[in-house]
């Protein structure tokens, strides 16, 4: 139909995140802080760290995204804006996509931007920095979309966090497999585009399907 709903919700959610900068920055702080613990736990041996780095960075990125996903629709549900969204005269997928895009811009994108720093800390070979950033940018967008489905399903639960993890983590597995594979193949000096292509294909599928699932879940939750 039109993209008015998309832009309006994208702008509003970005503004809301800006007003609550501290809250919006917490996934990023989590990502940074926990990642600094790894060299302390594993030891400063750079060869061993480099071996673990792709997996660690991806697990941290996944957890940081999951942390922020829970509140994606909860506030809207409480203050009644969710209901207004569902009865607005447009396809619900547009505002939903706007909200998810805003979520990615405040979590996935900053996370991608600081990831070289973490890479440096974990002695990730320089050659793998660019593949890591691209795979994180694409992968965290997938995580935001898939996580939003879980957030929509658990929106009316007071303590939905654990249930959200149970619903969403199995769906995260392909993303983490191909995400870390992209970084690993780059370290091994092999062509890293094939796993990245799979990741991109997953993003395309998620953009097409997740908003429908989210809209359906929100209607379901709102209908009693």
């Amino acid at each position, binding site marked *: 139909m039109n993209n008015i709903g998309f832009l309006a919700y994208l702008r509003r959610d970005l503004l809301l995140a800006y007003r609550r900068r501290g809250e919006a920055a917490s996934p990023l702080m989590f990502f940074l802080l926990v990642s600094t613990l790894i060299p302390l736990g594993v030891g400063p041996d750079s060869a061993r760290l480099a071996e673990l780095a792709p997996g660690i960075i991806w697990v941290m990125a996944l957890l940081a995204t999951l942390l922020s996903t829970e509140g994606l629709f909860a506030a809207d549900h409480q203050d009644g804006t969710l*209901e207004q969204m569902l009865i*607005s005269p447009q396809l619900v997928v547009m505002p939903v996509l706007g909200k998810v895009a805003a979520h990615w811009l405040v979590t996935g994108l900053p996370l991608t931007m600081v990831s070289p720093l973490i890479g440096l800390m974990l002695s990730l070979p320089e050659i793998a920095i660019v593949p890591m950033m691209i795979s994180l940018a694409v992968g965290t967008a997938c995580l935001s979309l898939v996580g939003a489905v879980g957030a929509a399903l658990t929106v009316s639960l007071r303590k939905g966090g654990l249930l959200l993890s149970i619903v969403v983590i199995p769906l995260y597995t392909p993303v983490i497999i191909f995400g870390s594979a992209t970084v690993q193949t780059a370290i091994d000096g092999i062509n890293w585009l094939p796993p990245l292509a799979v990741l991109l294909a997953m993003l395309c599928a998620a953009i097409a399907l997740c908003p429908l699932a989210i809209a359906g879940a929100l209607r379901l939750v709102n209908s009693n």
Partner: protein
Amino acid sequence: MPLANPLMVDHLLFERDDRNVFEPINFTVDAGDILQIEGANGAGKTTLMRLLTSALQPTSGSILYQGEDIRRCRYEYLANILYIGHQSGLKMTLTAEENLSWMSPATCSGDDIRAALAEVGLRSYEDVPCHNLSAGQHRRVALARLLTSTATIWFLDEPFTAIDKQGVATLEALMRNHVDAGGCLLLSTHQDLALDGVRKYCVEPHKQRSLR
């Protein structure tokens, strides 16, 4: 703006946990009508409002918009209604102006928004974050949507909650203007309105339910 036969509700029923919430609902609303929905607490007034705005799907019966079931002309219908419920739909970290402007049609200019806020008595509060406003002022921000909206059918669920006397008068004037222009209005309130021509409809809780 007057619509022919804007709203007709025919034998509407809604089940929750396998029990009917209220007795079958039947009424028609014409252009220029004010329908006050009454009923005891828990009778199902808000449920009825949510059914009418298509947030809930009826178990049986139908809601006709200009003679057509709203499930078949959903977007046309939704583009022409305005619903203000119990929850204000305001974001507390946004200012009054920001809240109103994202809830209003895209055609509204910044001047329209500020004029609407001034009209509901919030002049010079435009830039105040909503968490610094009182409950009555929150309500006023939400009700300022009545001025920016182009919808013909208004659904107001307890619009007078937390509003002061002078605010009630402003609100009633707004309602009067709306129905004089051929719009229609459904509201649920326990208060008597100082408007003429208000029809009343009483929502009866379902008999089986009240026997339990």
